[in-house]
């Protein structure tokens, strides 16, 4: 029972991190219909920026995180402005391919700059923990859950109460019509990508927290948030949360209980298998609906 509770907590913590990562995907998908395959690279960039500022430059941790958030938001907006803007109006296919290309380039660039070895994150929590009964609660995981809840609440408020949230949804629905109604569509895209960049820092921070550390393979872990968004349906922030938790629990529980016959590191592919099984039953995810088709 103790082991189960321990795994349950780890699953919730990992699921919260995936939800944070998934929210980054959803933000972009909702405003542009693009699945951002560069999200893994952005998370990596976020984690490495914090690590570089906090350990190499010597900035205290909290300012380092805030600076990283600002830098990545700027980088996201710059990517939209200098690259994606050039292909606006092209089929979504082209934009998705561009994010794939940008992702591989940024990941390799990070590996070239910082090497393939693990780095220190420079966070104040490290492996510190406290016990509830026999269950170990790591501070970094608890903070991860807290920040995720705060970020999600902020996003829901932004989406519901600010004009930008509405503008983003309208832009996703019909870019030309939205433009003709006087919404500054290119600025909406800039804000979207800046937001995704900022979210990537938070996601990267907790993905790289104990027991992980900033290293190039973390990008693969970020890709496991894909099943989470697919399960949740690409448009739904609520779905991102539920999908994240389902995938987090799936991964942690299989790491604890999967029989040896399934092979080493089965937990790393369990999210994908769960995703394919669920998609066979519900092709648009748990919360997605089949969109109405118009010619």
């Amino acid at each position, binding site marked *: 029972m103790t082991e189960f509770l321990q795994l349950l907590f780890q699953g919730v913590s990992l699921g919260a991190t995936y939800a944070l990562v998934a929210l980054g995907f959803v933000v972009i998908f909702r405003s542009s219909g693009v699945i951002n395959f560069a999200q893994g690279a952005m998370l990596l960039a976020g984690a490495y920026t914090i690590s570089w500022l906090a350990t190499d430059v010597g900035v205290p941790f909290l300012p380092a995180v805030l600076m990283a958030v600002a830098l990545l938001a700027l980088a996201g907006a710059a990517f939209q402005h200098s690259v994606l803007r050039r292909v606006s109006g092209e089929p979504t296919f082209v934009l998705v*391919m561009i994010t794939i290309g940008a992702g591989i380039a940024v990941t*390799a660039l990070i590996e070239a700059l910082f090497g393939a070895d693990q780095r220190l994150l420079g966070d104040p929590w490290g492996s510190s923990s406290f016990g509830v009964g026999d269950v170990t609660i790591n501070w970094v995981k608890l903070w991860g859950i807290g920040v995720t809840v705060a970020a999600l609440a902020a996003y829901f408020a932004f989406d519901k109460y600010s004009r930008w949230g509405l503008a983003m949804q309208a832009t996703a629905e019909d870019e030309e019509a939205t433009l003709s109604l006087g919404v500054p569509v290119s600025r909406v895209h800039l804000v979207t990508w800046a937001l995704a960049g900022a979210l990537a820092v938070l996601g990267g921070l907790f993905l790289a927290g104990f027991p992980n550390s900033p290293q190039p393979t973390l990008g693969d872990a970020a890709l496991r948030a894909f099943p989470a968004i697919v399960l949740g349906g690409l448009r739904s922030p609520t779905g991102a949360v539920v999908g994240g938790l389902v995938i987090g629990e799936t991964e942690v529980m299989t790491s604890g209980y999967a029989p040896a016959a399934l*092979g080493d590191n089965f937990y790393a592919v369990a999210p*994908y298998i769960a995703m394919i099984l669920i998609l066979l039953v519900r092709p648009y995810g748990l919360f997605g609906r089949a969109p109405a088709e118009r010619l």
Partner: protein
Amino acid sequence: MRRLTLPALAVLAVALPFALSAAQLTTATFVVIAAIGATGLNVLTGFAGQISLGHAAFLGVGAYTGAVLGADHGVDALLWIPAAGVAAGLLGALLGPIALRLRGLYLAIVTLGLVFIAQHVFFNATGLTGGPQGRAFPAVQFGSFDFSPGKVLRLGAATIDSSGLYYFLALILLAAATAFTWNLRRSRSGRAMVALRERETAAAVMGVDVGRLKVTAFVVSSFLAGISGALYGSYLSFAQPGQWSLLMSIQFIAAIIVGGLGTTAGPLLGCAVVFALPSLLKELPFLPEAGSGGLSASDLTSISYGVLIVAFLTLQPRGIVGIADRLHRSGGNDDHAKTQKVTVTTPKEAHS
């Protein structure tokens, strides 16, 4: 002018091995082998507009089928090369039901999962794949006609070594694959695929059997990937499961984009750039030795793949073929021009 292009290319391709150094011929052989797989992906992505990140998995399945049949059971290459294609094609047909339900972008994610699942299986199916240490792959042998390193074929004054034999075998298979896809593109199925790419709902309304067509594109694509993978493994003679990775899938995507999506010559031209790049970059004088830290050749290669994809899509979406067409407009292929126009007049796809 255009009537001379094809024979001229054929003569060039046949003469090429005799003009190259051993190292250059090795690179050229890998390029031609990869072009077979890229021709397949071009059907799926270039014609039918489906994004697949799973191409490496199909190459891996083909390679291990070839290895198990050729090396472990002593089957002749005349059988294991096609069998590799069939095994990969079957996997493609199995994926069909999923492909049939999912539209565009969901499919990219499912095939992303496929790469990781396939790698997991390759790492753990030790009996077939040798596990993490990797395994040896059989040299191509047609009866007593042996392609192993060290063997030489003498034709009069000319000699063809092992690399050359692989080069010509791959060239013949590539020619067959290209002829097949060229005809496919001009058939009813080919036109239906392009309709599917441009707008799925419209294609379905016009009577295109969207589901069946997607499965067809998948099977063709994965069959050619399997053949390519079998030759690739055999020519490498040794491979580890880690090789059939997401990066390999991205190499193939880069190749068809750089060459020109949906064009006939695109896959070969793109592969010539993408798969020759690593050996070219290794020659750069300013790079540090491998393993000494700093900017390594492999990092630089990955960076260039990404930059190539982004640069071509933003600046020259029709790839090298598009550049060539622009250079001598008189011989330009109408078909590409039309495709381009259609893309421009349909500014956005359904947000599926």
